[in-house]
């Protein structure tokens, strides 16, 4: 598969939220406001790229040579959560402006299945380093784009007349369903 195709696939047709169904909790939870969705999307993108690179290197240069690949789950989750913690401290002390945008969402990412899932998929699909990078950037961008579009739709719900029992999460899920249809059919 060529790299451009891989990039488009991971971003649109095989979108991480709408097709692989990873990262649903932040997708539903933090998409009520446009600014929140943007913060979450960018945080996930950054953390996803950094943690994918680190876990990929650890897997191929530490776990495989020492024949301890069964420690994958533990190792990856440890790397991701400690990296999120480090990133949080750095951003808090050095980049005040970025902190206003991302500060609230970074701690939530430590247990985000989109990030953890991507690091696992990188290994399962047996990518080489460049493919891994392309796939990760595509997935992260896909997450950011979809959560941003979704939040702008959800902001309209405040003025729309929604059936009583569908208010809140049910209508959000049905919107997500229509978006999933659009993404898989239209871009496929």
């Amino acid at each position: 598969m060529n790299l451009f195709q891989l990039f488009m696939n991971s971003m649109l047709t095989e979108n991480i939220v709408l097709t692989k169904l990873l990262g649903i909790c932040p997708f539903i939870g933090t998409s009520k406001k446009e600014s929140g969705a943007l913060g979450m999307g960018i945080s996930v993108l950054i953390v996803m790229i950094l943690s994918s690179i680190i876990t990929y290197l650890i897997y191929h240069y530490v776990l495989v040579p020492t024949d301890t690949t069964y420690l994958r789950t533990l190792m990856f989750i440890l790397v991701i959560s400690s990296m999120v913690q480090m990133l949080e401290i750095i951003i808090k002390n050095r980049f005040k402006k970025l902190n206003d945008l991302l500060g609230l969402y970074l701690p939530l990412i430590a247990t985000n299945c989109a990030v953890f899932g991507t690091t696992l998929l990188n290994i399962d699909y047996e990518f080489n380093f460049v493919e891994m990078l392309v796939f990760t950037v595509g997935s992260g961008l896909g997450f950011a784009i979809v959560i941003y579009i979704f939040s702008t739709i959800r902001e309209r719900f405040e003025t729309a007349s929604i059936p009583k029992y569908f208010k809140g999460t049910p209508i959000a899920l049905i919107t997500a369903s229509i978006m999933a249809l659009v993404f898989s059919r239209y871009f496929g």
Partner: protein
Amino acid sequence: MKTIKNGIFNENATFVLMLGLCPTLAVTNTFEGAYIMGLCVLVVLFFTNFVISIIKKLVPDNVRIPVYILIIGTFVTVLDLTLKKYVPVLHETLGVYLPLITVNCIVLGRAISVATVSSVKESVLDAIGIGLGFTFSIMLLGGIREILGSNTITLMDGISSFTGYRAVYQVLPDTNILPITLFQTPAGAFLTLGLLMAFFNFIKEKRSDTR
């Protein structure tokens, strides 16, 4: 008994707390995948709540979450290896969603909100209740999606190498209404969960009206 009932109904993980939605949506294209995932979460929840309620006084507050995640990760790895050894087909079907139980918000959520503050007995009962509640709701979702999406109901297929016989039934013979393949796709997963949630909102409203 009261704690278990509370976990199944009042604090149902999927429909009330809305936690752990990723596996709920991803592995429910078949009934079998759904209940196996439910049981896996139940097992992990049981052991983590048990261990955490024992060691809760030894863990300092500022490293609480990393320690808990490591404990959860350990049990998930054990489960992962066990399934790989005994039911490899199933291990293949669940795929990446099995290690993802580690970051499932139900498990960590219950560990923080219940196991840290309650006695061992209380935490274990809570784990059973929440786990069963999760299993029932994921089974409901899986059942509906499989019946509508492929016109079959799979009780045992992947685990047949383990139990010894297969059980896959056709629901409606000779019909051109089913299957509606939409329900097998991710879009169908969102749709079914959204409709079910609206339905449960409706029931809740009706029950509080009659009281």
